[in-house]
């Protein structure tokens, strides 16, 4: 009789503990996947402030990487078609925020199309602005005499190529550099490509 009671008590304890731990686990896993270190965790540091991922949209991604990308950037093209770079910091290692202005300088890429896009890191969509501008691309941008290009990031209008950020200070943003239909050489050298510099101009 006592053994029967002990087993019943043990089974009930197992079930209650499993359900409780299951709920906690689901909540913690979801929070971890969607949190500030979720999407970018699928990227690896490569060059300057930039991180690279060949797992975005890829069937080769692990279950964790797939879930992170699903929440932070779903319906992306696989690395076979597009190379993705992401920056959360400037070249000095400081987080990109709306409290500062930044100068981005880069070269063109051997690719069908490239674009540089700015996203609010919290909402993961565009920063609303009067000019309706969130990106510059290889066709729309003007190149300097030496073939380079420059984009200014600021919450005040800038001459030349300007990407607006939040009017409020201390808002985090991130940059995505996408290379669509890159040449075979560009794809092969993805981890060592010379990438744009992200220089803090003023705070």
């Amino acid at each position, binding site marked *: 009789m006592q053994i029967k009671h002990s087993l019943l*008590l043990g089974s009930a304890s*197992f079930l209650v503990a*499993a359900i409780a*731990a299951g709920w906690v686990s689901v909540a913690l896993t979801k929070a971890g996947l969607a949190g500030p270190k979720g999407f970018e965790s699928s990227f690896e540091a490569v060059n300057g402030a930039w991180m690279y991922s060949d797992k975005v*949209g890829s069937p080769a991604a692990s279950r964790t990487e*797939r879930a992170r990308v699903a929440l932070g950037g*779903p*319906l992306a*093209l696989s690395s076979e078609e597009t190379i993705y770079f992401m920056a959360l910091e400037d070249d000095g290692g400081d987080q990109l925020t709306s409290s500062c202005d930044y100068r981005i300088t880069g070269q063109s890429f051997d690719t069908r199309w490239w674009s540089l896009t700015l996203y609010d890191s919290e909402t993961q*969509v565009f920063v609303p602005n009067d000019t309706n501008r969130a990106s510059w691309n290889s066709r729309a941008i003007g190149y300097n005499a030496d073939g380079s290009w420059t984009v200014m990031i600021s919450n005040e209008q800038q001459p030349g190529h300007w990407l607006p950020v939040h009017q409020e200070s201390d808002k985090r943003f991130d940059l995505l550099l996408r290379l669509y239909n890159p040449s075979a050489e560009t794809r092969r050298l993805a981890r060592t490509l010379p990438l744009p510099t992200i220089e803090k101009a003023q705070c």
Partner: protein
Amino acid sequence: MLTRALPIVVMAVLVGSAFGALLGWNLTLERVPVAVMEAIEAKMIGPDRQWNKCVHERQYGPLPRVARSNPDSMVTRVAYDLSEGSLRLRGETWADYWSLSVYQQNTDNVFVINAQQIQGRTFDFTLSPSQDSPVRSPSQRIISPTTKGILLIRRFVVSEDDVPAVHANQDSMTCELV
């Protein structure tokens, strides 16, 4: 009696917690991508639940579509359900970057082709659930590993000046369940 049962209860709680935590973690990782796809598909099919319908984005510029979408692109999107047949898509590619991509129900990009990989300026693809489904010539078959999913056609646009031409390109497309 309680003293005798205590070790069993403690052991049961420990094993139960570990089992529940592991199960919760695994289920979440499996479920999250599918839930994201279902949420996007629900938006795409709307209240009338119109699967297999080509929906053209008519506006150019930054729109809060999904997380980190590309504002350069004016997309045609289809939430597909191949349980009742295959989906045939025909039309013209686009002068700037153009691609057609297929996402299975766990978000994986299982197929992509760009304009430079297509001979000529027209395309004709049939998205089917298996190799056995009939495909009308000269359409090229794309197999979707899952019955449901999302197909995207991206056209990259330089400025607002391109919008009328994009609309004409979109309107010339046909999407039909065959």
